[in-house]
């Protein structure tokens, strides 16, 4: 049987990614991009809802998607650290999206063929969306990397700062996906005239075990404030 915490981790990745992307609403660099980022946020949010609902059923304690999203503290969230990092800079958002979607796409491909019927149906839907996210992030990574001097500097900086966090994605049973991930990401970085950071050194982790950065608690405080102020209310 599929593990509750594993599905919860997948759902938390999608939920926290959606929450970060939604923070771009009405402040994207171009109005067209506002719409694109909202689309991607909606995709991640939709997948999060399906996964959290399924996780709740696996747990068997009658917790709904909203119970799981709104009534857990950060120590009970199982998302990777990458998705919770703040996004003040559009280059950071695109680097995060590139790294995340290049991981989610092959992961969902694999889960779509898994023996778990529910999970495979969710993954089959989500992988098409991930392919689109990867396409979007790749286009922008190339434009920022190979655009102006300033955009090149910002994009390289974002890639360098986020690279250490990507190791956590391949902890555990899907470690072998990293080869495919690297092939995808390295090709985009090369197109973008960006340098692929070296491995080794600092490899932050712990998100899957509920040990997060300081940023997650703030993200959750904002997300949960209204829901928690009205215990038991319907919305």
């Amino acid at each position, binding site marked *: 049987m599929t593990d509750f915490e594993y599905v919860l981790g997948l759902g938390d990745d999608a939920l926290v990614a959606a929450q970060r992307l939604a923070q771009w*609403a009405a402040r994207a660099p171009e109005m067209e991009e506002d719409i694109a980022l909202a689309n991607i946020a909606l995709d991640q949010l939709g997948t999060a809802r399906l996964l959290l609902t399924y996780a709740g059923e696996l747990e068997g304690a009658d917790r709904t998607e909203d119970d799981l999203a709104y009534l857990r503290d950060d120590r009970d969230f199982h998302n990777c650290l990458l998705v919770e990092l703040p996004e003040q800079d559009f280059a950071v958002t695109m680097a995060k999206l590139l790294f995340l979607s290049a991981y989610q796409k092959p992961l969902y491909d694999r889960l779509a063929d898994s023996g778990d019927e529910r999970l495979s149906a969710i993954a089959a839907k989500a992988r098409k969306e991930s392919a689109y996210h990867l396409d979007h992030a790749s286009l922008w990574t190339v434009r920022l990397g190979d655009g102006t001097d300033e955009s090149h500097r910002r994009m390289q900086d974002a890639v360098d700062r986020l690279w250490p966090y990507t190791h956590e994605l391949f902890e555990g049973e899907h470690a072998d996906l990293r080869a495919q991930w690297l092939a995808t990401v390295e090709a985009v970085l090369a197109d973008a005239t960006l340098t692929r950071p070296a491995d080794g050194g600092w490899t932050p982790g712990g998100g899957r075990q509920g040990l997060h950065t300081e940023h997650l608690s703030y993200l959750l405080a904002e997300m949960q404030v209204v829901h928690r102020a009205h215990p038991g*209310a319907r*919305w």
Partner: protein
Amino acid sequence: MLQDIACGEASCNTDGVYGNDFGAPDDPAGQSLLDQVEAAERELRSAAERRLAGDDHLQGYFEAIIEADQKVEPRDWMPDDYRRSLVRQIAQHAHSEIIGMQPEGNWITRAPSLKRKAILLAKVQDEAGHGLYLYAAAETLGVSRDELVELLLSGRQKYSSIFNYPTLTWADVGAIGWLVDGAAIVNQVPLCRCSYGPYARAMIRICKEESFHQRQGFEILHTLAHGTPAQREMAQDAVNRWWYPSLAMFGPPDSDSTHSERSMAWKIKRFSNDELRQRFVDMCVQQASVLTLSLPDPDLRWNAEREHYDFTQPDFDELMQVVKGNGPCNRQRIEHRRRAHSEGAWVREAAAAYAAKRAVREPAGV
């Protein structure tokens, strides 16, 4: 041209887009708003079938098009004033959609359920889309989007004053959907019959998409009004705060309204501010009773003689203050827009630089 379409303080806005300059259905009684949109779409098609009386004069041809309820299209000759009024009108409408993303966008990250979060995100996204449809329609009149955005950011063109009020609680998202979108739809459904083709087509598309916006607002308020005492109180408070600003969206009373006569002649206005405001009030009274919420007007009552509700007019002095920039959020809204625009400049420059490099590398290709 920019000077002309920039907005003098007293000359526009209040009778603007979310106010109501353009066109109107003949008899909307008994039709749902969405039916009216569809009727406008059918009429747009059938008007195109009609033959025009031949007239070799440009002015005569323009007038014949208007007379036959046909649409004026981008490359047709048109009077300068017609072009200028349209640019100003459509641009203000577009600006309103873009600025209007902020008050509701304020609650996306705090939406109290995942379902509500998804709906609100989709709604704010639609507003960006509507802004873009409208900028595209304005551009067919020979003005560029960059010029219009510049007029917005420099304060020379306005957006609807309603967005200068703050969203203080989650219930405000419901009140905006129900009252503000409701008033906007009453104003905008008539625009589906505007005599300028690209604007009419954009409005048909927008009104179809908007119908979900009003319903989601109504649903939020309905849920809150039937929830806990604290939720109910939140809903009533939001309705109390948004009611009069929503009535003010229809613009100043007819006695003070500018532009009307000419707009009537050009078939860009058939109902007055006061008529549309009355229609909105009549709609809301019944809906408020379904919500079990009250409208904050002790003098609201049915007038059997007029067959309409009597109601208290909004404070038009307050409206003029907000139009002049003295509303609670004027500065915040425009500063937010300026910041997004300036912080995004390096991204837009990068994309342009990349496109230029590629054009050199692959002159023929995509």
